[in-house]
């Protein structure tokens, strides 16, 4: 789960990390009022989307009065922001953060994350905080220092000092830098984060570290022990359809084609998408049914596809397992078709447990499906059905 910037900052403040004074706002009027209550000389009005590159994409506006802050918010709210990290669809801006614009003497890059290949928590730090940090790293203009945490999360004092020196930090900043790393480490571990990234991290003229931006990602698999964070989840990030699918044990991602895809298992799903593209078809979605899904959950998934006007054919590619035999998938389709009264040419490729029984269930529901036991043929058929319907329009 990606926290919004203002949520990330609120979390860090609990651990003692300095962030600029600020308030989130849902409307331009609120943004203006928020600026007025801050009463400073310069304001930053920042679109709240879970991706970097906002500065370059005009998602951050610097202004000098509450009126201008309101106007800046009006310009951002309701717009779709596309940055190099959002993908082409971008994110709808539903909220802005209005905060005091801080003068930085110098800025750093600082992140805590899990290095999965080595199974350890690492601190990455760069002597220069910047949106262009990846390009600059590529061209050799900047560098990234790495410090791994010991098991249990201990930070070795000597290592921290050496890191501070490599970053070229003034000796009088070393102790506050060590304190900041300790805060981030604790926040990271206590909240099951997979990423905390401060970019830029300002060093002010007064010699304090202030996180001008903060990105926090929480491990979805650990949310069960963080009900407080779970409560922060709203539907601002994914579209509502994807959230609804999650609650039905479905991993659903919208795509821009015309073939609805239903599979059980991520790998099988990725293979199916690859095969559809190889056959010159275009998937309308990725939908992976989790092992824990019931036929009612599966019905919800099929309903999503039947309700999507872009879908011209449906391809079901499932390998029944012990806990989720094929007939659960068949029942799901049957229920969805009866409930919605809608149908599409549906190609099913069933293998594994209860494939035969699933065929019987289709008959019982009166579902007309195109039965293709061969995966390659099933894909070709689904592509043909979609393109046939496309031409007739």
């Amino acid at each position: 789960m990606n926290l919004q910037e203002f949520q990330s900052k609120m979390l860090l403040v609990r651990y003692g990390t300095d962030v600029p004074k600020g308030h989130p706002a849902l409307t331009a009027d609120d943004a203006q009022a928020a600026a007025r209550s801050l009463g400073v000389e310069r304001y930053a009005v920042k679109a709240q989307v879970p991706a970097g590159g906002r500065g370059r994409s005009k998602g951050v506006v610097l202004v000098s009065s509450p009126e201008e802050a309101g106007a800046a918010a009006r310009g951002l709210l309701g717009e779709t922001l596309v940055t190099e990290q959002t993908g082409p669809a971008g994110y709808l801006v539903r909220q802005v953060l209005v905060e005091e614009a801080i003068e930085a003497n110098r800025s750093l890059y600082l992140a805590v994350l899990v290095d999965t290949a080595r199974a350890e928590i690492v601190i990455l730090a760069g002597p220069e905080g910047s949106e262009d940090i990846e390009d600059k790293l590529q061209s050799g203009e900047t560098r990234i220092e790495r410090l791994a945490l010991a098991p249990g999360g201990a930070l070795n004092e000597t290592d921290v000092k050496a890191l501070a020196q490599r970053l070229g930090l003034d000796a009088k900043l070393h102790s506050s830098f060590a304190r900041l790393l300790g805060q981030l480490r604790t926040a990271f571990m206590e909240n099951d984060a997979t990423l905390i990234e401060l970019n830029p991290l300002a060093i002010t003229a007064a010699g304090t570290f202030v996180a001008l931006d903060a990105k926090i990602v929480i491990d979805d698999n650990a949310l069960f022990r963080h009900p407080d964070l779970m409560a922060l989840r709203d539907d601002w990030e994914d579209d509502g359809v994807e959230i609804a699918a999650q609650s039905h044990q479905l991993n659903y991602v919208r795509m821009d084609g015309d073939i609805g895809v239903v599979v059980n298992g991520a790998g099988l799903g990725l293979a199916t998408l690859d095969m559809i593209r190889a056959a010159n078809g275009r998937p309308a979605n990725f939908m992976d049914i989790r092992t824990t899904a019931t036929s009612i959950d599966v019905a919800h998934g099929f309903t999503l596809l039947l309700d999507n006007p872009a879908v011209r054919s449906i391809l079901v590619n499932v390998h029944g397992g012990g806990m989720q035999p094929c007939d659960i998938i068949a029942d799901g389709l049957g229920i969805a078709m009866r409930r919605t009264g809608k149908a599409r040419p549906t190609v099913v490729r069933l293998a594994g447990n209860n494939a035969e029984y699933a065929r019987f269930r289709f008959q019982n529901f009166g579902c007309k499906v195109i039965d293709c036991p061969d995966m390659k043929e099933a894909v070709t058929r689904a592509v043909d059905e979609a393109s046939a319907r496309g031409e007739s329009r």
Partner: protein
Amino acid sequence: MSILVNADTRVICQGMTGRAGTHYSAAMIEYGTRVVGGVRPGRGSSRHLGLPVFDTVASAKADTGANASMVFVPPENAAAAMIEAIEAEMPLVVALTERVPLQDMIRVRDALKHGTTTLIGPNSQGILAPGVCKIGVMATGGERSGHIGILSRSASLTSEVTAQVSAAGLGQSTTVGIGGDAIHGLSMRACFELFLADPETHGVVIVGEIGSIEEEELADFIATSRPDMPVVALIVGRHAPERRRMGHSGAFIEGARNDAAGKIRALENAGVIIAESPHLVGETMQRALLIEA
């Protein structure tokens, strides 16, 4: 012969009394696996599926002589269960649990460094040595005994590919689902090395997917070790929905290496034969074996 398991493998199930634990333990017994007991804290000295249940892995191991444990414990307690088995010096632990928190797995990997256990998973499909031993949730019926080793990061493609390999007339020495989670036990490369060292394995099928850098590490290993058997790989995710990014740090750790095209390039450069799609894995291996001969 097989890797990791054989006819002497004696298995206990941590979490045997749960719904999934019961279902799959029973299926394993039916397959002929020597399941010798279960572990469920608080249920010691009871019986389940006609087998003794113990409070701890250590007592189960001492009493039954088990040399493998299957972990079917919910995600909240899965890491603790794995660590308990590692501390009890269980030689083989196969963790089936999905959605184990990432930071918990850091602790598990740390415990592995101090122990002697080989951990498979979590989020593994298990291990299947046809006709000899099955640990886990793999579908059976599509497998047959033979000389192809299969190792897979993808849970759902494991049974699929096994069935495709059998359909091409090729049996398997062992199929291993190493697990698709970002942090897990036995790596792709380490599993591959076990197959290389197994005299009964004459060819290896790799099933990989986008994310992680395990395929790249395996490619580096194959490029330098030049194994004397054909290796066929299926890498899925060439047309996955575009991933949104959050911040820059991922790029600093893994670089741009872990997309499907990069993995395929690395493996091809190392001499691995790429199967374009799941239905081609069996025949690709068949052809490779003929050329080899």
